[in-house]
């Protein structure tokens, strides 16, 4: 599992102590990766603003990519308060990876 956000590396590191996630967590403050994927939010900015904060945020997105980097499944949030639920993500993993014989 890989995560990408506009948080700076030191912020990600600090938060890792709180949530304990083992995933590779990448920092994309300048939205280079986010733009490469086309995930910059085009509507009103609704995150914290001010010194040290990103001016734009990505649309919360979850995607499943196969061993060759091909997108098998993707879901964007229509609202920043909404997320792909765990049951939806698990179902996507199950249907896409099990059916191709991959793990």
């Amino acid at each position, binding site marked *: 599992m890989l995560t990408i956000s506009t948080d700076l590396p030191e912020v990600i590191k600090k938060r890792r102590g709180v949530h304990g996630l083992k995933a590779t967590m990448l920092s994309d403050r300048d939205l280079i990766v986010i733009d490469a994927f086309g995930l*910059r939010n085009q509507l009103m900015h609704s995150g914290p603003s001010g010194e040290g904060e990103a001016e734009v945020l990505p649309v919360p997105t979850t995607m499943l990519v196969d061993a060759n980097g091909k997108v098998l499944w993707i879901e964007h949030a229509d*609202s920043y308060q909404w997320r792909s639920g765990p049951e939806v993500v698990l179902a996507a993993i199950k249907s896409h990876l099990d059916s191709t014989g991959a793990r």
Partner: protein
Amino acid sequence: MTNRKVLGTSLGFIAIFIAIGFVLFWFRQVNLVALPQDTTLFVVAFIAVAVLGIATFIVGTRWFGGIPAVGAIIVGAFMTGTIYISPQKVADNPVKVGDVIPQFVALNDDGERFNSGDLMGKPTLIKFFRGHW
């Protein structure tokens, strides 16, 4: 006159109780990652508590009914506002099913460069998120 103030004061308390109830319900659903995509119910509820709060003052209230009424107006307006600014839209050409993801390099939380080429060879779940957690 007195009856009106009893009614107004009651409205203030009713407004704050509904407001607190819906805020607790909202954050419970957020925690469960179970907020509905259609938030109309919440919008209606939060506008309603703000209106009830305002109605409290129109009807007339004792001072201790004014406090919960102001609370209900603030909560109702704030929550309606956060829902109003929440819609998200990706760029015109986002990565789609069937596309191969773009190559990229980014820093991980140890400040080391991570190359997307390292993802090849096994499936990966990728999450773009808003940070701050």
